[in-house]
């Protein structure tokens, strides 16, 4: 992607005040030197200003305002307990004090023990109910974003900013665009694996006021998405956990897609696919031809 294409992709984020200062400066510098992009920018700015100039769309009717002002001034403060409740609590405390002053140590201990047992039973019940509903913890925000990004890519809403089948080219493209280094090893070549999947390209996607790296793969016409961000921005969590070679993989199924998230050497990854295999079996699909038997053995259930 050349400078003009990158600038045009970023323009709307600039106008929405969603770019960081270095990105803003880079975009402003490009606009100063590129008449075509400046023209496009002016059109986009005018369009957004015309929408924003239409505010307010509606004004609350004066009667509604008056009604609400009355309702709010009449509403009891949620921090002021009703007098009846106050009296009831005071009575309970008074009784408790009486009981506490009795030299009946054993009775007090029994009551406390009963409370602890009750709390434990309640906790156990809540835990079992939770796990009945969902066998694994909720997926992380990053995993949800990865699935959403994958779906947008499938719908053609996320065109790639760099199209290349060479991992080193894509790694290089991300330098200076994201605050971490995206290393895409040629795993198939290194492990002597037959070529089962192809690298298609990459682009930036917004995540938590920053950019994450998006890398698209394809395996026999089935798209696979890889999202990468720093471990400080997102940590993998949720789903079924499998540890292999010291890395904890989180397997989850979101909106019908399989998602695997993991962290390694300061980066967090999310891999999204529509592979039908369950859990770690889905890893083996891509890595089945590898000579790295330790890797495969580590993934087997």
């Amino acid at each position, binding site marked *: 992607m050349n400078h003009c294409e990158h600038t045009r992709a970023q323009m709307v984020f600039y106008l929405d005040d969603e770019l960081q200062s270095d990105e803003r400066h880079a975009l402003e510098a490009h606009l100063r030197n590129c008449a075509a992009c400046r023209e496009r920018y002016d059109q986009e700015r005018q369009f957004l200003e015309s929408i924003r100039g239409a505010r307010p769309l509606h004004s609350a009717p004066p009667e509604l305002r008056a009604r609400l002002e009355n309702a709010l001034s009449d509403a009891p403060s949620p921090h002021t307990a009703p007098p009846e409740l106050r009296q009831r609590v005071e009575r309970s405390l008074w009784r408790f004090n009486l009981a506490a002053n009795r030299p009946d140590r054993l009775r007090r201990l029994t009551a406390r023990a009963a409370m602890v047992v009750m709390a434990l039973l309640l906790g156990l019940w809540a835990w079992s109910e939770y796990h009945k509903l969902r066998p694994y913890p909720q997926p992380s925000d990053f995993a949800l974003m990865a699935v959403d990004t994958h779906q947008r890519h499938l719908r053609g809403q*996320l065109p790639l900013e760099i199209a290349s089948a060479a991992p080193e080219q894509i790694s290089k493209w991300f330098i200076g665009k994201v605050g971490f280094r995206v290393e895409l090893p040629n795993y198939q070549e290194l492990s002597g694996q037959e070529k089962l999947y192809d690298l298609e390209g990459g682009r930036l996607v917004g995540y938590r006021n920053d950019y994450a790296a998006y890398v698209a793969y394809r395996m026999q016409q089935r798209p696979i998405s890889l999202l990468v961000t720093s471990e400080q921005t997102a940590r993998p969590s949720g789903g079924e956990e499998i540890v292999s070679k010291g890395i904890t993989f989180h397997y989850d199924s979101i909106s019908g897609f399989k998602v695997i998230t993991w962290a390694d050497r300061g980066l967090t990854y999310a891999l999204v696919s529509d592979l039908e295999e369950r859990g770690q079996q889905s890893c083996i699909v891509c890595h089945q031809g590898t000579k790295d038997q330790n890797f495969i053995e580590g993934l087997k259930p």
Partner: protein
Amino acid sequence: MSDAGNRHTTFSQAALLHLDALYGFAMTLTRDQTEAEDLVQETYLRAVRAFGRLLPDSNLKGWMFAIMRNAWLNQLRHTRNGPRFVELDAEDGDHSEWLGHLANDPHVLYLRKLEHEEIRAAIDNLPHLYREIIVLRDIEGFSYQQIAGILGCPAGTVMSRLGRAREKLRRLLADWHSAASTARTKVV
């Protein structure tokens, strides 16, 4: 007055500053004045009950917008057995009737010069999800992250939906202009 009482009064005053914005959002959601007023009232009552849980540094306006949207979704679930966003699927639906009406109405031809009116009308005619996100970002000025909090979706969804909504709005306005020009040509 007690501390709790003071907080309550301060909250009420601060919350009322956002009345117009909340009413506008209620109109965006319901498209009906009576329903919008009821929704605003419901939102304020819920907020009064819950403001003790609002953290001191939280964004009051965003919090109330989220309350309003949840209240509205609850109402939809009760009345319609689940929210329906069929409008989004029908995003490329036929607006010719609306456009034709605008193009042929002399009064509206006059209003065509008033850009704000055009834009308000166009926003009003967007499918629900697009209308909502345009209002949150371009009318109310929430950030992507705040919108994600209000809508309960990832920021990525906000960005993509906003992009589609603006594109739709742009097309709608262009269609409107083209329909109005055709009508003007016929009159001449």
